[in-house]
């Protein structure tokens, strides 16, 4: 095979160098990096539009074009510097701890994304497009939070019980679309979207009840959970990173084992690849649908635990933020694989964590992060587009991309 693709006349050394270059140019990693670069470039277009300095300088563009370009440069560099300092490393910090705090913040934000992304990934590989992580997070956080602020239990046990509460809540909310799909064929995209709204209204209703409100207050906000139910901070008081992150990594390992090494995971993948063939082979497609949705719900419930027991510590209707929807993009970017999901979650966690710094330092709305996130996913999903934009050669052995 190699004899036909390589020219025999090429000198050995030259061929090696060229082969290496070819490998780099054709690699998937390069596409990912270039996709991020392209997204940042497109994002900077918005930054430039929003910059008042650029618009002022553009008025006299033809007399002094240099001013415009300088203003563009300042705006873009300022914005991305702020993002870097907000998400990875803050060089302005006066101690090492202050300097690396942004990165621990990134990991903290990534935690619920890892959990929910893992669950959605299992669903995607089983052919189920679950949009319901948002509702599953909300219900999980509600049940776990209720245990957290009402029950009085010893330190370790309370956390365990509260986490189990979150898991049960999320699993229940995932089970409903699962069984509807299995028994009635109801499309899971529709049922999960509807269950998101139902969950939100349910929590809004519960928050009007005394058992869910702070004593002496009528605001739709729950009491704080007891300290015994909080995830302990793993790097000490000055960093926000909590135990949930380690559990998320463990969950990623668990999901990897389930999907790649276990019989059940094989069945899930078989059902996703071809339900009819799986049924013919004697697998129960209905059982797989129910199990996958319940499992995805349980993982989303854990994402809820990262919110209620880790960062928020009290229940509001906004407890899930937009993690349930962001997790969809995370799972897609990670190609539904556990390692990819963890990496994508950290990337998106960083983008989200950079929001406050972006707002304070560069004076830009945090929504630019959404734009960059979605552009990254779009570009990564379409490698030919990236290759076209950067004038890269198309790979000789095109592999089918499974999203």
């Amino acid at each position, binding site marked *: 095979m190699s004899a036909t693709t390589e020219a025999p006349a090429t000198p050995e050394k030259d061929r090696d160098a060229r082969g290496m270059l070819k490998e780099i140019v054709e690699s998937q990693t390069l596409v990912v990096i270039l996709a991020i670069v392209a997204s940042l470039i497109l994002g900077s277009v918005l930054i430039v539009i*929003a910059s008042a300095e650029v618009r002022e300088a553009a008025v006299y563009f033809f007399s002094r074009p240099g001013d415009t370009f300088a203003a563009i440069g300042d705006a873009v560099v300022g914005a991305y510097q702020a993002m870097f300092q907000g998400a990875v490393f803050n060089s302005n910090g006066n101690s090492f701890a202050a300097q690396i705090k942004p990165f621990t913040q990134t990991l903290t934000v990534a935690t619920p994304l890892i959990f929910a992304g893992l669950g959605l990934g299992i669903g995607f590989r089983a052919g189920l497009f679950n949009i319901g992580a948002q509702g599953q997070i909300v219900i999980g956080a509600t049940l776990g939070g209720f245990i957290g602020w009402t029950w009085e239990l010893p330190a370790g046990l309370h956390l365990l019980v509260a986490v189990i509460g979150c898991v049960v809540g999320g699993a229940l909310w995932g089970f409903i679309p699962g069984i509807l799909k299995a028994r009635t064929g109801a499309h899971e995209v529709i049922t999960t979207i509807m269950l998101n709204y139902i969950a939100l209204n349910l929590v809004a209703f519960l928050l009007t009840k005394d058992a869910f409100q702070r004593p002496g207050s009528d605001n739709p906000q729950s009491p704080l959970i007891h300290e015994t139910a909080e995830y302990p901070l793993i790097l000490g008081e000055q960093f926000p990173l909590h135990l949930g992150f380690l559990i998320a990594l463990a969950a990623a390992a668990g999901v990897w084992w389930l999907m790649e090494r276990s019989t059940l995971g094989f069945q899930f993948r078989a059902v996703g690849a071809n339900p009819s063939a799986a049924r013919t082979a004697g697998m129960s497609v209905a059982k797989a649908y129910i199990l996958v949705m319940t499992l995805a719900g349980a993982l989303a419930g854990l994402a809820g635990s990262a919110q209620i027991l880790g960062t928020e510590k009290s229940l509001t209707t906004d407890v899930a933020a937009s993690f349930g929807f962001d997790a969809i*993009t995370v799972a897609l970017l990670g190609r539904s694989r556990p390692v990819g999901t963890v990496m994508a979650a950290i990337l998106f966690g960083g983008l989200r964590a950079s929001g406050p710094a972006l707002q304070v330092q560069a004076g830009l709305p945090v929504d630019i992060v959404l734009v960059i996130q979605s552009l990254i996913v779009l570009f990564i999903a379409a490698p030919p587009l990236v290759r076209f934009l950067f004038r890269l050669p198309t790979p000789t052995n095109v592999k089918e991309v499974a999203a």
Partner: protein
Amino acid sequence: MTTTVAEPIAAAPAVPVLARKLRAPITLGAVGLLSLLFLGFGTSSGEETTFAVARSTDFFQISTWTVPSQPTAILLSVVALALSGVAFWLAWNRRTIPWYLYVGFGFAVITALLTWAGAGKEGTSMQITGLLIGSVFLATPLVFGSLAGTLCERSGIINIAIEGQLLAGAFLAAVVTGYVSNASGSRELGAYAGLIAAPLAGALVGAALSLFAVRYWVDQIVVGVVLNVLVIGVTNFLFGTLLRENTELNQAIGLPRLPIPLLHQIPIIGPVLFNSNALVYLMYVIVIVLHIMLFKSRWGLRVRAVGEHPRAADTVGIKVNRTRVRNTILGGAIAGLGGAFFTVANGLAFGKEMTGGKGFIALAAMILGRWSPKGALAAALLFGFADSLREQFGIVGTAIPSQFLAMLPYLATIFAVAGLVGHARPPAAEGKPYKK
């Protein structure tokens, strides 16, 4: 010879021709029973409900009428139960349940609900006409959204980006309206300019969808979900920068109401159908035109062929990918036009994420309407009615917490998708890129 022919005929009755489809009648029966228990016996006796339909513009005034609440609610629930009994009998004998039975059932249960809600409310009456006006108005973006979905999916492209197309349309409509009315000094002209601009924004999102789906074969659901996020990001960003600094670009300017002479004075029908703005009239036109085009024209046949069996369509010379791109862009334009509802048709300024998930409800309406414009209209009106009911109940004040009323359309959707519709069959080639 005779024996070989006679045998299968004799054997035929023993083999069940069709399984009995009892799920729908059982669901109807359960709903009817709930209606009897909660609405019928849940109303305290001796109270009265007042219904009103009249509007001041009507030719002649229909007076309000008052009914004793409990007997009426019980009677209506019993009627509903009887209808579900008929449905069960039909299904048991393997006959199809006619659509008007469902309509009659729905009418009975909803009237029972209204009777229950209006019971003992002195001084307030259930405004039937207001309820219907609200239904049509609130259904407008859903109709446009589900039409967009239908148009794309019939050609084989899944359009999850309806939400983004609505939002983009709402945004551009607001900005163009603001700009033109500022430049020309005429608010009316501005509003119509916004209405013309809205489809362009939606078409742009549709074009992006078709680029990734048709040219680069990216999973269509992935592209749709991501495009939604992208549009939310871009509009939020511009809202926070451009529109905040130039407030004249984002004003509350509405389309004028265009009552149709004479027709709008007919009681009930007039205010509901013939006293709207240009966007709502446009909606009716588009529904009718699209329904005829999709199912009666050569173009429609080709589109459906592309969505069901692209290879066969290609074999007879239909350009599969070109059809898909055109349909996706056209669908995006229709959804974008629907987005104008949120700003210029409502007379509101643009707000962050103001479409609030209506694009997803439109998607549900499309599936509920079984991928046809007529069905999309009916399903969207159902959702609009549920929304309108919530508003009406909010005014009258009922024992049901408002959050549960807000859940109503979503619960109804799950019921409909799981209980009544069951396995809806989408176009066969949906979501699969066509590779030669």
